[in-house]
């Protein structure tokens, strides 16, 4: 049951050296640009830039390969689903219909549909390198500090850092419970019927949840004893101060967002239309 998870990768690179808050702001700006725009030119440019930054970060593709495999599988399924449900979506958006060949009924292959699905996929490809980079180059405890820095209430920021802190613990506990239930002969594999599996899984879920509730009691008592939340502000051990490169990065990110919005919306539509 070894499932790999994405986590921080230690490296010496300009991307790692940036403060967590900078990376968070840049990432948020980046994903809003990718979400708002449907302009192929903008998306392609953003994609190329993100690949360049990925190279600079010195993170190897191999190290995030398992996640990439998941995403590619998802994108493939998603594209198939889009085509099955709406083979004429591209024609509807771009207003013309260049038929390549017919399959059956309303299912034909048009240039517009191919272009539209290419754009949908590209949109994901713009965000994925940025998101991956953000995750593998920002230390979890610095992440909480940076959330607080961009204006999130420090108590909420602290609960995010608690979540990061307890994911491995709870995963370990989950394994222990699962193994001890399996030792008692409870089958969790796919050999069981769905309804039986639900019942068997609940023999893990119940103890896991009850022990977590107990953990909440213990941790909150400990924090209460240490006077958590008494002051309006809080300092963070792993906070990085803003340096020149941080300001430069943020300015560049804002300029990129503005530029991509101007290019996208100058003709009054989210979509870049090469068919007219």
């Amino acid at each position: 049951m070894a499932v790999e998870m994405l986590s921080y990768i230690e490296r010496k690179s300009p991307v790692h050296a940036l403060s967590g808050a900078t990376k968070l702001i840049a990432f948020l700006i980046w994903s809003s640009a990718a979400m708002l725009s449907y302009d192929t030119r903008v998306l392609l440019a953003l994609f190329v830039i993100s690949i360049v930054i990925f190279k600079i970060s010195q993170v190897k593709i191999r190290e995030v390969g398992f996640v990439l495999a998941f995403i590619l599988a998802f994108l493939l399924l998603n594209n198939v689903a889009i085509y099955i449900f709406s083979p004429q979506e591209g024609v509807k958006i771009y207003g013309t219909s260049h038929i390549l060949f017919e399959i059956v009924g309303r299912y034909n292959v048009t240039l517009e549909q191919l272009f539209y699905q290419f754009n949908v996929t590209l949109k994901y490809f713009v965000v994925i390198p940025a998101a991956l980079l953000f995750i593998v180059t920002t230390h979890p405890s610095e992440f909480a500090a940076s959330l607080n820095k961009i204006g999130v209430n420090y108590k909420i920021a602290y609960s995010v850092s608690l979540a990061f802190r307890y994911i491995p613990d709870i995963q370990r506990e989950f394994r222990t419970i699962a193994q001890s239930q399996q030792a008692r002969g409870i089958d969790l594999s796919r050999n069981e019927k769905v309804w039986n599996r639900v019942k068997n899984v609940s023999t893990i879920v119940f103890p896991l949840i009850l022990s977590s509730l107990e953990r909440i009691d213990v941790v909150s008592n400990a924090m209460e004893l240490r006077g958590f939340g008494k002051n309006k502000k809080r300092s963070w051990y792993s906070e990085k101060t803003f340096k020149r490169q941080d300001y430069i990065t943020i300015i560049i990110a804002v300029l990129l967002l503005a530029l991509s919005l101007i290019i996208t919306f100058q003709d009054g539509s989210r979509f870049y239309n090469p068919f007219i």
Partner: protein
Amino acid sequence: MWKNTLSIKTIVAIGIGAAVFVILSRFVAIPTGIPNTNIQTSYAFLALMAVVFGPIAGGMIGLIGHTLTDVIAWGSVWWSWVFVSLFVGFFIGLVANRINIESGIFGKNKIITFNIVQAIVQIAGWFIIAPILDILIYAEPANKVFTQGAVAGIFNFITVGVIGTLLLTGYAKTRGKSDSLVKE
């Protein structure tokens, strides 16, 4: 509003709750046979936490838990669906006071209240909000996202209805009953 509602217990509940949510979504999803649709026990847990710790904890566990799950598993976040988790957690949490699970009593009336509320919230969330956000953000075909939303909605509704109700009943049994003392 933040000052009064964000007790230390709520903060810890959000943190550890989000961690449990992540683990449940990653490891305890039972495939139904339909591709890409799982029985997500994490939503039953979300409902439990919302009822026990209130709307803010429920909403934040949904938000943080779902975001982290997406991030750890996929490397990117589907904000449209994350928003629905926040929405579901928050609005189920609004009945926390009515149900008052700490009293240790979770009888027929409360079970019905809980299920009516979760049904309304989840139908609004998965059938309407998630698809609309998908269309706005990703411009995906309407009939595709509405079908996806409906399938996810039905499964989550059943999961919360069955496992969530069982969890709440189990949790209520661990609390001391407020009406267990009898005058002699």
